[in-house]
Each structure stands twice: as structure tokens, then as C-alpha cells.
């Protein structure tokens, strides 16, 4: 498994040959990827490229059909989702998925109950995301999209993850809310967290990430340090316009048109 320089020893997550399906539909087709400790990885790609399924498979919310997921040196491919949380893997799911009938604080507490030891508690989360403090006793279902996203990230942090996967950081949020959410993300990055962000907004993604991975039709077509790549190069990979040689699995049998698969 070739990697980009400097990530060999401290790989926190190592995915190899991962295949995930929705019925007959191959959403993830042989993905290999590593994430090093302290990295911020932006995972981009068009709708249906398989980003969400990849994240959900890593988190254990979706079954892997083939391949392996190794986290912190242990094979967790067949571990139940809640046990992966215990190992330090947390996913902020697409659509936030707060428990709507519980308060913000209860949402945080439920995630903290079986947490690994670590810095995050209700107080530190509220310190990190000040916008949540006045909403503490509000029903989560009554929050705005941006507030929900902050709460959902906060909830994931309550488990004290070593790796935080965030699916669709800014999708469906008002611009002001996007700014607020990215302030939270920035704070995490400054704190040295390891992050994988799925983001539709390329500029946003490239502004915070130090590595960009682009998926197309279930495969990785670009994997490069963010500093070495221009927005146009990522856009080309995004639409599959010219195949950038990739460091991960070779892109075999390129397909002419995008599929209509969902992630």
C-alpha cells in the first residue's frame, strides 16, 4: 500500500480494498486509504461517489462486503458500531441525526456515558462551541440546522474520539451557520484532532484540510496533500474529466458516465 510521504508509522486508520454495497449497487469499490494521527483529510466527490457509504462502513453503520478496516493497529472490520466508538472512532452522520426529543445536554450526555477517558465533557464541549451554551436545555429537534450540526459534532466529541469522521459538514446550512460550524472545526484542528471531513464545498474543504481525497464512482481518483493541488485539478478529478494518476488502487475499467447510485 503506497502512501504519501511521512504517514507510514503513525497511521491511525488503514483501509484496504474496502467494498461496500447497497443491495446490488456497489457504492464503495475497493477503496484503500490511510489516515495519520493529527491529519485533517477532506473527502470530496460528487453525489453518489460513495463518500458517505465509505464513512458509514468505517464507523460500522454499514457492513463491509470485502476488504479490511484497521484502526489503531486492530482489525475492526467486523466490530459492531458501538464498540468502534469505544475504540475511539466517532461519526457525525449525514443529516446530523440528533435525538430530536431529547435536550442538547441529554444528547451530549448519552454519548458521554460510555466514553473513553479524555478531555471532552459537557462543559468542555460547551466551551468549545459557545453557541450551544444557551441551547443546553432546548429540545434538539427545535434547533436550527447550524445549531444541530454543532450539537452533533459536540455529541461525537463526547465519546473522546481519536478519529472524528464528519459527513457533510455544511450541507443544507445557511452561510452564517457554515461559518459557525467551521469555527468549531477550526478549533478542533488547532487542538490537534484527527479529522475526516466530507464536504461538498471544495474551497472550504481545501482551506482547512492538509490532505484532499477525491472519490468518483466508488473509487479514489485523487489522494494528495492539499498544498500540492489546485482547485481546478480537484474539480477535474471530481468530475472524472482527466484521470489524475492516483496513489491508491489503480482505476480500472473507467466508466463513461456517472452512475445514479446513492451513497
Amino acid at each position: 500500500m503506497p502512501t504519501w510521504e511521512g504517514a507510514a508509522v503513525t497511521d491511525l486508520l488503514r483501509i484496504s480494498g474496502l467494498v461496500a454495497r447497497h443491495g446490488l449497487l456497489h457504492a464503495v469499490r475497493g477503496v484503500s486509504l490511510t489516515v495519520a494521527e493529527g491529519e485533517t483529510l477532506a473527502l470530496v466527490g460528487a453525489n453518489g461517489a460513495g463518500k458517505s457509504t465509505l464513512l458509514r462502513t468505517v464507523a460500522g453503520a454499514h457492513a463491509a462486503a470485502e476488504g479490511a478496516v484497521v484502526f489503531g493497529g486492530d482489525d475492526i472490520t467486523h466490530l459492531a458500531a458501538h464498540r468502534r466508538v469505544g475504540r475511539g472512532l466517532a461519526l457525525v452522520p449525514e443529516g446530523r441525526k440528533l435525538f430530536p426529543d431529547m435536550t442538547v445536554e441529554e444528547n451530549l450526555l448519552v454519548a458521554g456515558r460510555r466514553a473513553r477517558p479524555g478531555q471532552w465533557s459537557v462543559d468542555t464541549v460547551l466551551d468549545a462551541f459557545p453557541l450551544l451554551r444557551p441551547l443546553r436545555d432546548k429540545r434538539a429537534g427545535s434547533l436550527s440546522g447550524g445549531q444541530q450540526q454543532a450539537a452533533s459534532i459536540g455529541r461525537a466529541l463526547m465519546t473522546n474520539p481519536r478519529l472524528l469522521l464528519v459527513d457533510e459538514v455544511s450541507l443544507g446550512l445557511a452561510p452564517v451557520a457554515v461559518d459557525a460550524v467551521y469555527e468549531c472545526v477550526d478549533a478542533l484542528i488547532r487542538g490537534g484532532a484527527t479529522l475526516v471531513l466530507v464536504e461538498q464545498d471544495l474551497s472550504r474543504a481545501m482551506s482547512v484540510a492538509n490532505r484532499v481525497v477525491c472519490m468518483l464512482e466508488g473509487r479514489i481518483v485523487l489522494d494528495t496533500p492539499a498544498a500540492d493541488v489546485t482547485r481546478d485539478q480537484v474539480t477535474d478529478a471530481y468530475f472524472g474529466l482527466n484521470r489524475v494518476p492516483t496513489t491508491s488502487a489503480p482505476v480500472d475499467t473507467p466508466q463513461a458516465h456517472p452512475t445514479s447510485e446513492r451513497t
Partner: protein
Amino acid sequence: MSWINAVVQGLFLGGLYALFACGLSLMFGVMRIINLAHGDLAVLGAFGVWWVSSETGISPFLALLVVLPVMLALGYALQRTVLARSLRGGELTPLLTTFGLAIVLQNALLQIFSPDVRSLGPSVGSLATGSWRLADQLSIPYLGVLILAVAVTVLGGLQFVLRRTGFGREMRATAQDPDTAALVGVPAASVYARATAIAVAVAALAGTFLAIHSTFDASSGPTQLIFAFEAVVIGGLGSLWGTLAGGVVLGIAQTIGAHIDPQYSILAGHLVFLVILASPRGRFIALRRAHA
């Protein structure tokens, strides 16, 4: 005055029905399962208490201390083995499975304990029969007060657990969205198993009070399931306190019915249930989320 007495007796009977209903409501709230064996599990508990009490000669209340942990374990095991598997089979499978279990339980009890009708009333002495006389035709039975107090305590305790404890928050989170609960580290299977354990133990408690209050036999289960279900629906599937209100409405309907003619007792309860279902309110019953 005799009408007031009927209402008062119905209130106490309602406590018993609420006790039956609360386990049903809890399982429905957390897992979306209507456990069709609920009544039979309650009767199994009553038989357990009867057996321990008649083998050892101890009071049914002491026997309960032995039986309740056993029923907790049974509920836990039931979920871990049969129900967990049936939940994976889709919406209909738990119904079919629990209905099958109900038939097995009823007939196993019939086979083991014969069809004889039993009562635990005689073993608790004056508690079962005594009452405070307030007026010529108005009395407050000791047992009714005890049952109502137990029902309020159990419902209040469950409410407290759900609202104020970590385990309760896990139950509510799992009820609202089991997949996301797993993503924050909550083991749904274990939450389900503990919820079932509580539901089965409370059912056994209810079954025991039924056995003290009146009589029971191997085929008493289905009727109790129906009463419990009626109480839950009349209460609006909203909350545990709604369940208590539903149980009381059902109890009062039955005692008023019985006051007119003993034959109308159970029928009156069914009719109140059907009227509420047919009323404009009933339209929302299926939509309402129940989490205990």
C-alpha cells in the same frame, strides 16, 4: 353513593391495569414491539409466586422477592435470544413470534399446573378482603390502595429512570433512533434486553397482584394483555402517566358497567376503548410515538 363507590373501586382496579400496561408500553416505546405474550408472562409470574409460596409456605410478597429476579433474567434472556432475532425479520415477525410464544406459554402452564382456577387472596389474609368503611356504601379496600400505590411507584420510578439516569437516556435515544444511538456508543441490543427484563418483571408484579386481587388460571393471559393494551391506547400512547390515566378510565368503565349488570363489566371497557379509537382522537393513535 353506590355509584361513587363504583368509581372508587374502578380507580383502584385502574391501578392494576396501569401496572399491566406499563411493561407493554415500555417495550412498545423502546422497540416498537407489541409483545403478544405480555399477559401470559404476567400469569407465569403469578404461577411462580403461587408455586414458591405454596412450596415454602411464605407470604406471596416474600415469594415475589424470589420471583422478580427470575423474571428479570427471563426477560433479558428472551430478548437476547428470540426477540433480538425476530426484530431483524421486519415489522411483522415480532408479532408472529410473540403470539407463538403466548400459545406455548399458555399451554405449558396448562400442562404443568392443570386448568384449576387459583387465587393468592387467601394467603395474604385480611389485606385481600379488608377495607376502610367511609360510609354506608362507600369503602376503600386495603388491597386497592396498595395496588394503586405500587402502580404509581413503579410508573414514577420508570419515569425517573427514563428522564434522569444515563440508562434511561440510552433507552430514549435507542427508541428514537437505534442506528444513531449505536454511533454514539450505545449498544442497542443490551438496551433492548434490559428494557425487556424490566417489562417482564413488572408484568410478573402485575400478575401477582391480579392473583391476590381475584383469581387466575393458565388461560388468564390474553385477557390481561387486552386490558393492558386498552389502557395504553386510552391513555394516548403518550407517556407513562397517560398509561395510568388510561388504566383508571378502563377500570372505572368496567366497575360502572358491572354496577349496571355484572355481565356488562368487561364489555363496557371494550366499548370505551372502541369509542376512543373511533373518536377524532383515535386518528392520531397510530401516528403518535410512544416512548414511555
